[in-house]
C-alpha cells in the first residue's frame, strides 16, 4: 500500500485531473440556432433591387390624388428586443452572446439582411415579437461608434439616440412633376414652441406576431423565419400618407411620426 503522503498526493492529482476534464467538457446545453431573414416588398411584390428608378404607385385615397408615385433608393432600420413565443406563451429572447439584442437591417448590405442567433433553447415556437426601432433603454447616444449603425445617429436637439428607420427616395405628385426627394426618417419626436423643444415623444413600436409559425427547434439544428417589410403599408394603412401635407423631411414633425408609428402595426409580416 502507498504511504499516506503518497496517497494524498495521488488523490490531489486525481482531483485536479477531474477538474480539468470538467472544464474541457462542459455540460452541453439543449440549444439550436435561429436565423431571421429580413425581406422587403411593395404591395405584396417582392423587392429584389432598389435602383431608384422604378416607380411604385401610391394608392389613391381622399388624401392622396390618383397618379402619385414614389421611387425607393434606400431602406435601413433597427429591430430590437426580439423574442420567440413558445407554445405555452413564454418568451425566449433572441440575443447573441456578445451582442446587445439590437440588429441593423440595410437593403444595400446583404449581410445585415440575415441575423443568426446561436444557443437558442430548444422548443416549439409559435410566434415572434420585436420592437420596431429602439426603446429608451437601447436608444442611447454613442451606443454605436462604428458605421453603418453610427451613421443612423439622431441629433441630440431632436432627442438623441438613433434613427429607427430611414427610407429615402423621390416622390412624384404627377407624371409630369419633377421627382422630389423625400426621407421617411423615424425616431424620437418633439413638441416645439418658439423654436425650442418642450417635450420628446418615443415613437418605437412593440409588435407581436403570435400563432404565425410553428418552429420545432431541436438540439444543434437550425430554423429560420422571414420578417418582411411591405413598404406600401407605411403609406397607406390605416393612415394614407400625403407627401404634400406632411412634407418630405419629417424628423421635426411629430404628427407625421405619429402617422408612421400607427402604420407600423401593419407593415411587418412573418413567413
Amino acid at each position, binding site marked *: 500500500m502507498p504511504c499516506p503522503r503518497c496517497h494524498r498526493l495521488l488523490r490531489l492529482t486525481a482531483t*485536479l485531473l477531474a477538474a480539468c476534464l470538467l472544464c474541457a467538457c462542459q455540460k452541453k446545453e439543449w440549444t439550436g440556432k435561429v436565423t431571421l431573414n429580413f425581406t422587403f416588398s411593395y404591395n405584396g411584390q417582392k423587392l429584389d433591387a432598389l435602383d431608384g428608378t422604378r416607380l411604385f404607385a401610391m394608392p389613391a385615397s381622399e388624401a392622396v390624388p390618383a397618379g402619385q408615385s414614389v421611387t425607393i433608393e434606400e431602406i435601413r432600420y433597427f429591430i430590437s428586443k426580439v423574442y420567440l413565443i413558445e407554445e405555452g406563451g413564454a418568451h425566449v429572447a433572441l440575443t447573441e452572446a456578445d451582442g446587445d439584442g439590437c440588429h441593423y437591417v440595410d437593403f444595400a448590405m446583404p449581410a445585415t439582411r440575415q441575423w443568426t442567433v446561436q444557443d437558442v433553447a430548444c422548443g416549439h415556437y409559435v410566434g415572434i415579437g420585436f420592437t420596431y426601432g429602439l426603446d429608451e433603454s437601447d436608444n442611447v447616444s454613442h451606443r454605436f461608434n462604428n*458605421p453603418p449603425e453610427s451613421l443612423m445617429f439622431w*441629433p441630440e436637439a431632436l432627442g438623441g439616440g438613433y434613427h429607427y428607420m430611414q427610407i429615402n427616395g423621390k416622390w412624384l405628385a404627377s407624371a409630369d412633376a419633377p421627382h422630389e426627394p423625400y426621407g421617411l426618417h423615424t425616431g424620437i419626436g418633439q413638441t416645439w414652441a418658439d423654436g425650442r423643444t418642450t417635450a420628446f415623444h418615443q415613437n418605437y413600436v412593440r409588435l407581436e406576431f403570435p400563432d404565425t409559425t410553428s418552429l420545432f427547434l431541436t438540439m444543434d439544428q437550425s430554423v429560420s423565419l422571414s420578417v418582411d417589410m411591405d413598404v406600401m403599408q407605411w403609406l397607406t394603412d390605416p393612415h394614407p400618407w400625403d407627401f404634400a401635407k406632411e412634407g418630405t*423631411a419629417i424628423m421635426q414633425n411629430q404628427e407625421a411620426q405619429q402617422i408612421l408609428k400607427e402604420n407600423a402595426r401593419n407593415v411587418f409580416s412573418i413567413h
Partner: protein
Amino acid sequence: MPGMSFRYTKRRLWAGICLLGSLCFGLAAVSCGPYQPEEPEGPDYFDLRIPAYFPTDVHVPADNPLSVQGVNLGRYLFYDGRVSGHGDPAAWRSCASCHVQAHAFEGGPDYAAPTPHAMLPLFNVAFNNVRYHWSGDTDSLERLIYLALTDPNEINGHPDSITARIAAIPFYNDMFAAAFGQTVPGAPVVTIDRICKAIAQFARTIVSANSKFDRYVRGEATLTDEEMKGYLLFTTEEGADCFHCHGGSGNMLFTTYGFANNGLDPDSLHTDAFDRASVTGKPADKGVYRIPTLRNIEYTAPYMHDGRFKTLDEVIDQYSEGVHYAPNISPLMHHVTDGGVQLTEPEKQALKAFLLTLSDPDLLTDPSLSKPQDDRLP
C-alpha cells in the same frame, strides 16, 4: 526485499503522478485555447490611439499592420523628395510637396492641384471604410499611394527608379529591414510594395480629434450661443440639413465617406469625366462624388471636387440658394425644389461659426507628424 519493494512502489507512484500531471496540463492547454508561441522578433506594435467617440473599427489591412518602425519609415519617406526616384534634386517631389501639414495636409487655398480634382483631406484616413478619391476609384490606401507616386501629375516616378533610388540610400536599408524584416534571404529589402505600405502606415497615424467641437463633446469646452445655434442648424432638417451626410456628435468623422450628387451644377451642364460614373459606368452616378469630411474645413480650401469655391461663405451660399435639380440628386437633398435650405444671413453666420469649431490647430503642428529632424533628409 521490503526496502526495494517500497522504492519500487514509490517510483511507480511518482510515475503515475507525473503521467496524470502531464495529462492535466495537456487537457488544460486544449481547453484553454491554442498554444501561444512567443512573439517572434520583429517590428514593434504601434498603438494607434482611438479618440473618444471615434469608430473603433480601424481599417488596417492584415498584410500591413502598423508598427513603430513602419510608421517611422513612412514618415521619412513622406517627407523625402528622393521617393520620386529622380536624380536631379530639381525634380524631387514627395507627398509633403502637396500635403502640407500647415494646411491640414492639403495644399492650401492658393495651391492649384495638377490633378483632375481638388485635394481631399489626408487625415483620419484610418477610419475610411469605403473607398478613396473623389470618384472612389481606389479601394486601398496602399494603392492610392502607389498611384500618387507614379502619376505624371503628382510625384511622377517610375516604380523601378523609385525603388533603386531609395535602396541606394544606406540608412533606408536598415529602416526597411527593421520595419519589414528580410523575408527571403537575398531578396531586396526595399521594394515599391514596401514603400507604399510604409507611407500608408504613417498616413494612418495622421489623426485629427482635438477641435473645439471634440472638446465640447468630451465635456472639456462649451460652445458660444452662436456656435450652438449653428450646430442646431447643422443637425436639423428644417435648418441647414447637413448632418445626414456630414455627421455630428454621433458621427465624429463628419462624413459618411459615401457618395452623392449634391446639386452643384444643372444636370445638363455637368461635363466632368472623372465623377463616380466614370468608375461604375452607371448613369445614376453622373455628377456623384465623395462626401468629404468637414473637419478642419477652415484649413482645407478650395472646396468641392473642382475647387470652385475659395471661401466657406461661398459654400454656405451654394447650399442655401444655389442647389440645382438633377434626376439623380441625393434623396437627402430635401430642399432642392427650393434651390437650397434658404438660410438667413444671421443663420449663415451661425452655421459658419459652428463649422469653425471643427478646426484642430494641433494637427498643424503635431511634431509626431512633421518632417523628422534628421540631417540625412534633404
